């Protein structure tokens, strides 16, 4: 809603400030993309010699693509673990009482708020004391565990909006708990779960602080990039980053379309109910 005419939202500096902040937020991203096409390397103003060479070089760079495959593998596995534990955890927080519930809720959320180095090191010590060799598996366990928090919060938020009457109706009509869970609860949480999965996937693809300590022989993409950065700057990194940016952008847009359509349906249904009654 609009505010009274004289309120401070009419201040002229606010839109300018917003423009500046957006400039600040997007400057590195724009630079990154522009210089991925720059023939004379990264840096140097103005950009000159438009070229696709860096992309060409990228496509024959096996080390990068191996790390992309590793990252995809890790991300899919992390999504599976985080959802398999995060959905029950959200259900438990929503509808069960057990000793240590408050501690459990805080503990689950901790990796999201703690600097990644603390979680990474702690897990490194666990794997060392447990005699486990570092590999992609340890990274998957790390990501999966740290990102249970995301699945739990998203699904918990979905549960808060859920209409309990539907589950009660299902139970009254003779379905058992598991049938109710699979046929009523889970389908109703569909959007929260897809949202959580997308978020976990992207966070895992991008994660570096925890992976930094749990890496074995095979690199994930961020660690491959990290290794190259330490050796020097190459526009190939601009190229791979630009490609990933475009992919994540496509993922977000798809997700919002999906949600807008689903929420639109709910609104339409609500209107129909209102009109009928």
């Amino acid at each position, binding site marked *: 809603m609009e*505010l009274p005419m*004289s*309120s*401070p*939202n*009419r*201040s002229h500096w*606010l*839109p300018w400030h*917003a423009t500046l*902040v957006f400039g*600040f*937020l997007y400057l*590195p*991203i724009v*630079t*990154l993309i522009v210089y991925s096409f720059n023939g004379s390397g*990264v*840096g*140097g*103003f*103005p950009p000159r010699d438009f070229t696709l060479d860096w992309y060409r070089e990228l496509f024959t760079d096996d080390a990068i693509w191996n790390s992309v495959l590793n990252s995809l593998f890790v991300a899919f596995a992390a999504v599976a673990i985080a959802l398999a*534990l*995060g959905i*029950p*955890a959200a259900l*438990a927080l929503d*509808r*069960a009482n*057990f000793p*240590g519930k408050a501690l459990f809720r805080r503990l*689950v959320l*901790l990796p999201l*708020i*703690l*600097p*990644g*180095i*603390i979680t990474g*090191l*702690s*897990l490194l*010590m*666990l794997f060392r*004391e447990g005699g486990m060799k570092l590999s992609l598996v340890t990274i998957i366990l790390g990501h999966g*565990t740290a990102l249970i928090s995301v699945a739990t919060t998203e699904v918990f938020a979905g549960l808060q909006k859920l209409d309990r009457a539907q589950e*009660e109706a299902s139970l009254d009509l003779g379905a058992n*708990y598991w049938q109710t869970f699979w046929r009523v609860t889970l389908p109703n949480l569909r959007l929260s779960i897809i949202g959580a999965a997308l978020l976990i996937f992207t966070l895992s693809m*991008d994660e*570096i602080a925890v992976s*930094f300590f749990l890496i074995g022989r095979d690199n994930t993409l961020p660690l491959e*990039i*990290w290794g190259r*950065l330490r050796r020097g700057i190459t526009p190939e*990194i601009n190229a791979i*980053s630009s490609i990933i*940016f475009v992919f*994540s*952008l496509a993922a977000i847009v798809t997700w*919002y379309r999906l949600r807008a359509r689903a929420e639109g349906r709910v609104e339409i249904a609500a209107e129909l109910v209102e009109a009928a009654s």
Partner: protein
Amino acid sequence: MFSRGYRAAITIPPLLWVALFLLLPYALLFCFSFWSVSPAQAIIHSWILNNYRELFRVNVYLQTLFRSMWIAARVTIFSLLLGYPLAYYLSFGAGVKKDFLYQLVIIPLWVSYLVRAYAWKTILGSDGVLNTLLQYVHLTSHPLNFLLYSPFAVVLTLTHIYTPFAFLPIYAALEHIPRNLIEVSHDLGAPPLQTFRRVILPLSIPGVLAGATFAFVLSLGDFLAPLLLGGPSGIMISNIVVSLFGAAYNWPLGAAISFGMLVLVIGLLFLSERLEKKWSFR
């Protein structure tokens, strides 16, 4: 309404997993911080306070911790200075563009942290975009060297990364302010600035606290931006931990520093939660 079996099935697996992969590792961090390393580089499992004594005996640890806190404090202040007015503008002034602008704040979060830090490096370097631009327009005749490999570069990059994190809770808090409260304040004759100071600002404090905590805690523990852009003067406490776990090979001492950080961070989270509660009942 739910059976025992159902409750057990949703409770026990997450509890066990979290106990094994979160509680146990954090407890191990605590244990390690008392152990030590033998000259043959084996971990000695004896319980002594040497590591903690070392932290207070050798100046560099506390100095680096204070420098990290000072960097994190600057990042927090700048993120709030950028994030608060932006959230205010989106919530009260942006009109129909609101949703679009909101998405525009979120999108940079989807670009890899590492890649954004790297992009700042290509901007700030001595033959980077900014320096060559300044020379191109003849504002400077030689590259400005303080831009990269300095605390300035670290603060700038971390501010860039944590501004959206500061923005989000502030925006959520502003969106939850009932609009008729603001109208009442206006109708009772309060000038806009007073409405802001007496109504909007106090009600947005919980959001500010949450945003500030996020920005401070996460930048305090960062080690990648300092490694990439900080140079020797931009070293932060986590960099020391990384080297203790790497070449210096003294895990127990690194664990002691990390555990100190963990305590500091949990203390801050606790404090900010208390303050948030206090402010939300006003």
